[in-house]
């Protein structure tokens, strides 16, 4: 069913249950297709899934530079051994120089399929080692600049040349909206699809709903959020959320992060206009007892990579039009500290996954880990600005050319060709 429906038509269609059988039997999934934009100005590009690893991931122990001898000098207890096929606690070689942490094994298939690209020694040029400043800068896309209050995704949505009125155009998973989404385009935050409906005395819900709408139309500061909420609830009420079974036997981690990714897949497959989803995974502030192959960090890497692999698998053919990108506020100190952990650092690595990725390659202008090559208090230097990665994804995959509005006052330093298009 390719004919575009206006949102009102769609509601009419579904509420009157007109030709239910005919419609549903012709549809690819459990949702009728709908459109939130007139012909020709609908989103042309990929679904963008942005995963933020809160706390500062230790990129040096995620994608290990096993070809750099200094890595082994600096990481006396935390280093991951050089790749060896005989042992599953060593690094998994990627290109003779870099290797995956063994707990990132779920990413190996994506790498082999060339659906995974890695960027290393990447990050923000701002020297801050504060989680909060670093996250703000990274999510706003404006390192060092505190006066711009919108996020890079918010500005992307605002500047995109297409239209999309869906309340699920951009979603932030979790209770609090990610700062990257902040901007004039409404964002729906979501913890649980199953709970995302109006609840109370069922016989009175319709009336309650009507009065709530009136109460939130009196000119108060919460009116527009309330309006977004009603729109989102209405739209999601048309989606059959029961018994969702991920495709391809995809196994999501049974964590908040895994559940969030699964719900992103559900919403994406519902065809209700999803363009961008933000998902968080916390716990990366590994100052203490980080663990080499067993411990907090390996568990997190397993969770992270299992989730990425599950979403990619679950999306099936749709993964061809999906790009996932991971980021974290900063990397960690090259030399481990005295408590079996690592302190706040600078450069890091990012994972880019999707059908349109020029994968199977680590994109790195490796600065080295020798004392005179380290940054500030002894950190991996940043040789690729994270905005170069994001800008390319936005331009080539998401198809918004207005990069100067997404990243104001920034000129892309280098073209990585990390994605197709």
């Amino acid at each position: 069913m390719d004919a575009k429906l206006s949102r009102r038509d769609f509601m009419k269609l579904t509420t009157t249950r007109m030709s239910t059988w005919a419609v549903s039997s012709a549809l690819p999934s459990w949702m009728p297709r709908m459109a939130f934009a007139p012909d020709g100005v609908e989103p042309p590009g990929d679904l963008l899934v942005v995963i933020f690893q809160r706390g500062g991931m230790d990129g040096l122990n995620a994608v290990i530079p096993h070809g750099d001898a200094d890595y082994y000098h600096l990481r006396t207890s935390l280093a991951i051994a050089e790749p060896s096929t005989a042992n599953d606690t060593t690094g998994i070689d990627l290109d003779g120089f870099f290797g995956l942490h063994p707990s990132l094994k779920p990413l190996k298939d994506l790498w082999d399929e060339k659906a995974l690209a890695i960027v290393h020694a990447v990050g923000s040029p701002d020297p801050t080692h504060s989680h909060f400043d670093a996250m703000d800068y990274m999510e706003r896309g404006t390192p060092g600049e505190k006066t711009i209050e919108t996020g890079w995704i918010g500005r992307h949505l605002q500047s995109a040349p297409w239209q999309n009125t869906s309340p699920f155009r951009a979603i932030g998973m979790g209770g609090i909206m990610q700062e990257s989404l902040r901007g004039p385009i409404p964002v729906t935050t979501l913890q649980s699809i199953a709970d995302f409906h109006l609840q109370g005395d069922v016989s009175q819900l319709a009336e309650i709903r009507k009065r709530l709408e009136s109460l939130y139309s009196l000119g108060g500061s919460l009116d527009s959020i309330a309006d977004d909420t009603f729109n989102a609830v209405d739209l999601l009420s048309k989606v059959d959320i029961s018994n969702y079974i991920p495709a391809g036997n995809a196994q999501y981690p049974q964590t908040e992060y895994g559940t969030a990714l699964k719900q992103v897949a559900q919403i994406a497959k519902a065809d209700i206009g999803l363009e961008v989803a933000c998902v968080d995974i916390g716990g990366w502030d590994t100052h203490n007892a980080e663990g080499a192959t067993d411990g907090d960090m390996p568990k997190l890497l397993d969770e992270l990579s299992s989730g990425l692999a599950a979403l990619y698998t679950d999306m099936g053919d749709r993964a061809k039009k999906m790009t996932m990108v991971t980021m974290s506020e900063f990397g960690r100190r090259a030399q481990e500290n005295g408590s079996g952990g690592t302190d706040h650092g600078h450069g890091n690595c990012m994972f880019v996954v999707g059908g349109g990725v020029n994968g199977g390659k680590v994109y790195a202008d490796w600065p080295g880990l020798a004392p005179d090559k380290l940054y500030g208090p002894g950190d991996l230097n940043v040789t690729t600005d994270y905005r170069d990665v994001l800008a390319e994804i936005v331009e080539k995959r998401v198809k918004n050319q207005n990069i100067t509005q997404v990243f104001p006052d920034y000129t892309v330093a280098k073209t990585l060709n990390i994605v197709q298009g």
Partner: protein
Amino acid sequence: MKVSRRNFIRTSGLFAAFTALAACTPDKPLSFQPFTGHSSGSGSIAVVPTAVAVTPPTMTVADPLTVLTLSRISFGATPEMVARVQQIGLDAFIDEQLNPESINDDATDQLMSNFPTLTMTPAQRYALPQFGQPIQELVAATILRQWHSQRQLKEVMVDFWSNHFNIYIAKSLCRVLKTDDDLDVIRPNAFAKFGDILNASAHSPAMLIFLDNAESQKAAPNENYARELMELQTISVNGGYTQTDITNVARAFTGWTIVGRNNLFKPFGTYQFVERIHDTGQKQVLNLTIPAGGGEDDGTKVLDMLAHHPMAAQFISTKLARRFVSDNPDPALVSALTNIFTQSDGDTPTLLKAIFQSDAFKNSAGQKMKRPLEFLASAMRLTDAVLTGKSQQLVQQVKLLGQIPFDWQFPNGFPDTASFWATTSGLLARWNFGNLLTSNKIHGVQVDVKSLTSDAQSAQDVVDVLSQRFLGTTLPDDARNILLDFASTGDLGNNLASIAGLILGSPHFQVR
């Protein structure tokens, strides 16, 4: 994939937070009761009339400044509180609240006896077969205290300091140590001078674990505590410190640690200084020179310098003004508070009184959006909700509202500005909570809306009595008319719960 231990705590452990509590409820119903000294039984205070047949029914009406003040110094201004203000005056009421020991709170203390882990040692908590029990009990105790305590301003300040010195309860040993931080560091210092609570926090075993100072050694100091001590707890990110200062603060605190589990001579989970891992070299921190050869006192000197630093005065003043006045507090107020902070040596009661007396405060009605826990506690308090048994559903609601106490991973504490909380999922959760609570659909929680409306006969009376009770004032005409229209459709008796639910869901109830 297996659920990691950490994630177990994040989900099921906290979900079960109220089960421990429910086990004791038949004998000790956790209802809000008028307590000694504040009850009609004592004969000293007028409470809401219960049997007055007049139209409109008598309501406890307070002046706007009282309504505003009570909404900021409590988790919901009950009629009992309003009556107390009318009896002794607002200033005296604030003084009373600033002297929590003068207020009888035996009934709340009694509730706490439902939580055995509150009086256990860290070793005893560690030995419990049920891994999450200390977390569940502290979370439940915290919510119950906000809901029930007569010492409301103390609870507000406990919440403030708990966030200022935030400890994520599910990080390793914090699970068994945060209880002591709550009882020994935060609560006794709710109204302390800033330097005193800072010093107590620096010695707190839970803080030493949360920010990793317990593991810091002279050979390779751990910077986590040093950085957050300056950035988040004292002089702020604009405090002018460098990486060298951070390193030197970390060196000064080497040796500040906790007693481990295998120590035969000292109790596990208590503070201790270990000389052998302390860096005794000279250290320069900002303008402070710490001579070589020092010991435990090196850290104390850093704390003393930071507590009295002008940037700390400004930072704490800003945070207090943000908490009690506005998301974007008037710079003149912050500046005045900064001076008072310096003159009073960071004396919390002096600062609070200055805030309550300021014009910025008096003109700030409606400027603060309730955070989820404030929304929850105020709904519970003002509906006279009673916990009747096991309430997994209440815990689920707390989670959906988005603020489980101590379940914030970062050392900066839950955000205190509306922009973080005004979200689609957050607003929906509040609407649903109001409707579910008043229609008694949260299993284990009971509300009797009929008794709250006294003997109101008309739709108008019901709407006015309930808004007066929940908001401290009647609704403005536009909102009132919406509710009147609803109330007069169908049978009034059947609509009571939904009217109450709508007021709890209204924009007017989301602010304080």
